């Protein structure tokens, strides 16, 4: 899933400082799963903003909506009749949400209410970890099913570097050295020879480096 975290309340308050009527829009996709942008969090943010307004002696009106997804135009459409009642929208979907909203409703100011962090998963309740950097050409099968592009601090394809320490990465004792895990796994499986193969420079053309990406699948285009 796409993993996000709440923006500091102060930052959000600063964004909407002069606005009176705000619509908070959540998303039932990834951000609901990672407890940051679903209907519950919409209600919490709404309540928080109301408390802030009250404390500052301000009048504020806050609407709450949670869409099926904010990365599909058909669901973005669902707020077309109410959006004009508001001065601004705070989207607490991943970074895609505020943009789809901005594109569909060009007259409305849209603010991001979360910080989108990475593509990953929950390794336990309340703890998420990055897994994929969306390089566009998946090669995890060369590395024991683990991704050094997203998970090695230096994206080494011929690791590990000399900083690997007790299974941890040189950047922090809190970060696993994925190359340590890859090497141990491959050695255990008797696949050392595969690791000894030189991995040539990767083409980053399919990654973000190749420019903004779009994808067309003719068989699906109507």
């Amino acid at each position, binding site marked *: 899933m796409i993993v996000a975290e709440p923006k*500091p*309340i*102060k930052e959000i*308050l600063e964004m909407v400082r002069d606005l009176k009527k705000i619509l908070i829009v959540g998303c039932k996709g990834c951000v609901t799963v990672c407890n940051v942008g679903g209907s*519950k969090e919409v*209600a*919490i943010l709404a*309540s*928080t903003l*109301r*408390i*802030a307004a*009250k*404390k500052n*002696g301000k009048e504020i009106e806050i609407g709450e909506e949670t869409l099926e997804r904010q990365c599909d135009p058909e669901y973005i459409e669902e707020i077309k009749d109410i959006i004009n009642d508001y001065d601004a929208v705070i989207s607490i979907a991943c970074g895609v949400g505020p943009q789809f909203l901005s594109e569909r409703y060009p007259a409305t100011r849209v603010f991001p209410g979360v910080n989108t962090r990475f593509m990953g998963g929950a390794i336990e309740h309340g703890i998420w970890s990055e897994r994929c950097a969306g390089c566009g050409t998946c090669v995890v099968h060369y590395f024991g099913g683990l991704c050094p592009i997203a998970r090695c601090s230096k994206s080494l394809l011929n690791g590990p570097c000399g900083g690997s320490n007790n299974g941890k990465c040189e950047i922090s004792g809190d970060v696993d050295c994925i190359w340590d895990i890859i090497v141990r796994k491959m050695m255990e499986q008797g696949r050392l020879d595969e690791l000894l193969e030189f991995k040539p420079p990767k083409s980053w053309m399919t990654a973000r480096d190749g420019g903004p990406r779009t994808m067309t699948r003719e068989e699906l285009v109507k």
Partner: protein
Amino acid sequence: MTDNTPQIVAFCCSNCASAAANVAEGMKMTMPGNVKIIQVPCTGRIEVLHLLKPFEEGADGVYVAGCQEDSCQYVTGITKAAKRVAHVKKILEELEIEPDRIEVFNLSAGKGQEFVEMAHEMTGKIKGLGPVLP
């Protein structure tokens, strides 16, 4: 806050806090009238939003009264509640509202006196802080 009497909402676990309340009543101890008690089956079910709502409606303080950490009827109910209270403290801090306005208390069923005392303690503390609104 009217006449310097703070409005306080107390979420109380029915297993211990409420039983304690009954004991207190039986002992003819009086709960302060400014504390509105909301009974919940387990404090673990109190969400962040529930804790924020009273402030939104004008309360000056909120507390959760539940089991002892090691004798929670539903094992981790009070622990979860404590984490949520801590989270709401952070939100209040970000809003520049005193985080002391929300607390969590642990007690056990028989402690009627403690139950009343905590209501007084909280009232006293919130009185000291004054109203949320300027």
